[in-house]
């Protein structure tokens, strides 16, 4: 439930000067590919094709790091829904990246339970030490994007953070340099 990167300041609209593109789009779910096989296996668990949408989007993000408009169209074609429908779903869920993000995407929980244990200072430390400066912006070296996230569900281990798919709990300001060293 992240607050999402805000760096691009606009949509990934065709022809938009600051939008992100993946031209030419290399399809993810080509016949005989591993992602295709994985999706087919997942689809066998559900009575409808549409139920494969969230899993399909996860596969795209795992493969490409983000979900472009072209990829949304591809997923729509595979599952028999429109690109617009797919975008409607992508925009609902905060974990799908609609833009490229830093190599290490850092989400820091700042909801009340962590907030009262100093989560805001942890955010500040990450922004400072990564060189991101601002929430949602990617550091000049392209390595880090730091965002605030709503409750990560590990409230007794304040402050939990996520670095890409890794969950790190009990993060204090003091531990920030050591964590960044691991992810560098």
């Amino acid at each position, binding site marked *: 439930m992240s607050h999402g990167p805000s760096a691009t300041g606009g949509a990934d609209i065709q022809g938009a000067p600051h939008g992100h593109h993946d031209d030419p789009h290399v399809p993810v779910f080509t016949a005989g590919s591993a992602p295709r096989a994985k999706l087919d296996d997942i689809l066998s668990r559900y009575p409808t094709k549409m139920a494969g949408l969230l899993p399909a989007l996860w596969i795209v993000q795992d493969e490409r790091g983000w979900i472009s408009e072209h990829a949304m169209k591809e997923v729509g074609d595979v599952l028999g829904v429109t690109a617009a429908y797919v975008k409607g779903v992508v925009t609902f869920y905060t974990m799908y990246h609609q833009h490229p993000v830093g190599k290490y995407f850092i989400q820091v929980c700042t909801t009340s*339970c962590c907030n009262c244990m100093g989560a805001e200072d942890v955010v500040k430390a990450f922004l400072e030490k990564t060189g991101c400066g601002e929430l949602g912006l990617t550091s000049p070296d392209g390595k880090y994007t730091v965002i605030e996230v709503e409750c990560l569900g590990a409230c007794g281990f304040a402050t939990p953070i996520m670095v890409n798919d890794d969950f790190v709990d009990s993060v204090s300001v003091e531990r920030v340099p050591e964590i960044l060293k691991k992810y560098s």
Partner: protein
Amino acid sequence: MGYPHKSHPRETPILSKYFGDPEARTLEGWKARGGYKALPDALATDPVAIQNVVKESGLRGRGGAGFPTGLKWSFMKIGDGKPHYLCCNADESEPGTFKDREIMRWTPHALIEGCAIAAHAIGAETCYIYIRGEFTEPIAIMERALEEARAAGVIGDNAMGSGKKVNIWVHRGAGAYICGEETALMNSIEGKRGNPRIKPPFPAVAGLFGMPTTINNVETLAAVPHILNNGPEWYKAMCLGSPKSNGSKLFSVCGNVAKPGNYEVVMGFSFKEFLYDLCGGPLPGRKFKAIIPGGSSVPVITIEEAEQVKMDYEGFMEFGTMLGSGGVIIFDDAQSMPKQLARLARFYAHESCAQCTQCREGTAWMTKILERICAGQGTFEDLDTIFELTENMTGKTICVLSDSCGAPVCSGITRFRGEFEALITGKRSSTVAVG
């Protein structure tokens, strides 16, 4: 065992007995610890008979609403010719709650056995465990355990050689608090935006893919094998308070407290002893001030009130709050209540699915007002506006997210009005509870 602390002698570790024990994660390890004893018998038993055992046990939903589990199961009409579905709600996103995470991390097979029994009891052949997207570790552990269970024939098309079909799959969420609401969860599995549905129809009539569906919380399902193994009377007898609240309950404790973590106690346990004895009391040099006892969506109470509470559904209601999910959030005397409640309101504003006007606008407006007060620019009228706003946000929307924003905020203003007034009048922030 316990995690992250050793079990306290006054705990009743039933679900949490093997937290912290990595060997309990494997099928073999789980069997050696008494796992999968209930499932073979259950699969050979009439579904309605299992529903009745769970009804007699007094088990109520551990996700927050406290609805009687056996009764919920009995709404599923066995033999109606339709496919039935079981959804396990592992979306655990309620601030302050992190118990299901530990059940999945340490005892994945306990949940699998519970799911398999429940699926059989409601006439379902398919169960989806909907886990929030951020829980990467629990997802990996559950996937591994499910693969093991499938390979061993514990679940699958011929579960434990019973001839019964029980397929269980993990469905990963993608970041949306609202998907913990049961109808939003079903939409999410179907590949839709996680907007809650209007009820009726209730899920037992038309749920997932339009078919009869039951949605149960992780902790609820994990308790089922124990009830079948030990009998409903055993479970019912675990009761220190109201006779309507039975069994053991996991409480997640977080915030300003010496020993945050999960604690499992019998329903009706003294909250005072829980806070000071089990959880180790406040941090050095501090005092407890306010407590949100059941996840962030329930009203805040003062420590003076909390010290009188018996920890069960009725006990918390007596003091105007709720047991909810059992996520105990503690604020001490170093915290500003206006600031913390403003942060909570921001959570709800961010998580509103935006279908209903009252919620979409109300949560954002409430956040704006509270942040204004915190910035020293609030007025006394602002406090009245919050109460008016809450009235318009309560009981008027498709789901209860909107109500959940007003509950902690209004109870917080009522009980800690001095702190809000101090910010409005520009005086030093008061930490004294009033009212």
